[in-house]
């Protein structure tokens, strides 16, 4: 089984909400001070899913990240978890893309890799929360896709996928090669082992530029967008929490109940 996993580098989604600021002139998030970028947590679930498949039947895992200024210590994480190879699509031209231009570049890179049975993506990326790139890659490559997987079993050239639905899950069988997007229900991603980190450090990522995957710069990054970001903002909070007090926690609790009654919330 050859598996390709698409992994994005993002601003840490678990940075404290209060540290989150926007530069409205540039329509961009300013990096919270002291908070390092991370591997997108959803993509980490995809890496975990790939590793479980490899654990069960062997094979090779290739991680693929697209961006600019990718921090080697960050994007190496799939390697230190147990992936075999890392390919970076790293160039300014790739950046500021939307789902379209990103999926297109990733799909062309996957075509160049060529030898794969399965492509895994996160259900969405934790920055734009779009959830489109996976389906987009599948459509561009003409592959079947199953989204929102919480479990993947491979048998006889087919994947049996538990797909999360609004009120439970369904079991879907798909022929390979296929693209599957992975949801957090798959379970905690493993931690890199010390040996994993050492091995990862020795592996140099392969870096591809637009020309290496045969794409025109008009089709990728900002130039290839089909959606336009008009505005990025933080909605104003009324920000008025009435703290209900009391001599003791119990009394505060009673006062809270009275307060809610008064406000007709009870």
């Amino acid at each position, binding site marked *: 089984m050859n598996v390709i996993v698409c992994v994005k580098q993002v601003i840490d989604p678990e940075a404290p909400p209060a540290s989150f600021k926007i530069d409205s002139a540039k329509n961009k998030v300013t990096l919270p001070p002291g908070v390092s970028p991370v591997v997108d947590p959803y993509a980490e679930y995809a890496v975990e899913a790939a590793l479980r498949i490899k654990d069960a039947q062997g094979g090779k895992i290739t991680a693929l990240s697209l961006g600019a200024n990718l921090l080697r210590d960050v994007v190496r994480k799939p390697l230190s978890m147990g992936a075999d190879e890392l390919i970076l699509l790293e160039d300014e031209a790739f950046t500021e893309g939307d789902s379209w231009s990103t999926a297109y570049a990733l799909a062309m890179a996957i075509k160049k890799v060529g030898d794969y049975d399965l492509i895994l993506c996160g259900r969405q990326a934790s920055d734009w929360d779009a959830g489109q790139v996976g389906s987009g890659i599948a459509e561009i490559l003409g592959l079947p896709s199953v989204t929102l997987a919480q479990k993947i079993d491979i048998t006889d050239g087919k994947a049996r996928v538990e797909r999360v639905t609004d009120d439970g899950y369904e079991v879907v069988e798909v022929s390979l090669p296929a693209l599957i997007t992975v*949801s957090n229900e798959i379970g905690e991603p493993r931690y890199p082992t010390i040996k994993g980190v050492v091995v990862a450090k020795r592996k140099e990522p392969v870096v591809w530029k637009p020309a290496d995957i045969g794409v025109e710069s008009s089709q990728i990054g900002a130039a290839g967008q089909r959606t336009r970001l008009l505005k990025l903002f933080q909605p104003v909070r009324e920000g008025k929490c009435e703290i209900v007090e009391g001599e*003791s926690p119990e009394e505060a609790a009673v006062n809270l109940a009275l307060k809610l009654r008064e406000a007709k919330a*009870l």
Partner: protein
Amino acid sequence: MAEYKGVMIYGEVKEGKLAVITTELLGCGRRLADDLGQELCAVLLGSNVSSLVQEAIAFGADKVYVVDDPLLKDYQTDSYVSVMEKAVRQVMPQILILGQTSIGRDLAPRLAFRLGTAASTDCIELAIDPDSKLILQTKPVYGGNAQAIFTCESYPQIATVRAKAMSPLERDDSRQGEVITIEADLDPSAIRTKVLEKVREEVEGIKLEEAEVVVSGGRGIGDADGFKQLEELAKILEGAVGATRPACDNGWVPDALQVGLTGKIVAPTLYIAVALSGSSQHMTGCAGSKNIVAINKDPEANIFREAHFGVVGDWKKVLPAFTSKVKELLAE
């Protein structure tokens, strides 16, 4: 060349009825269609869905396209994308809206790529820009830390809409509409997936998404036993229990109770948040609640930036006293 015109919604069917999200989409679609002075149509896909046509009209559709085919019994990407592609090419709507459900999340992006246009997912607001006449698509991003407004200049403009973000119209059975049948024309061999089984994980009692009161607990609850106390309060208030992701991941409550970006979206009258910090990923799932009440021992917890009322204290002391007072007040 024919012109793209009108608003189309993808009507989801659940247990033989129009799904709640469908009535919300119809309400939103009606408003956009009226703003543009154009028609609103709904597309219903499935097997034996014809009986729902009148309901779609009563909730606002001018036209309903029905694609009834046994091969559409289960949602499958290949078959649904192919039929929707056909419907869009035939009807040529300017705008296509779907629900941000397990179906809409799968269908919308793939359909957009097939049609060469783009989608915005998980929108909480859609409005027509008076100048360009494009839809302004507002969606939470960065886990709820920010919102973004997108436009798309290619047609149809596709958006999925978050549950509870839009209001349905009053049902009006006197409304008249037109019904048009579209043939699915599916080639079974082009459907590359097979649905083997569907498992519903039902939770007893009032459904979280429909409850008027939600009592949610976080990591600070500590164990499954702690959640029994939340259940007790929920029961008294005729509400449901919700939870943060760590509480679900720890197995204290089933995954189905998770509220947030990757869980359920709720908008009750009263949301009681107990021993949870109020992360943006959690709050995005309950920010539409009318009253948010926080009980947390940390006065600096983010939840106090989001809540309307709060008590700073140990929930183990606060909650029992609160529950018994509520019980007393409700008995009056």
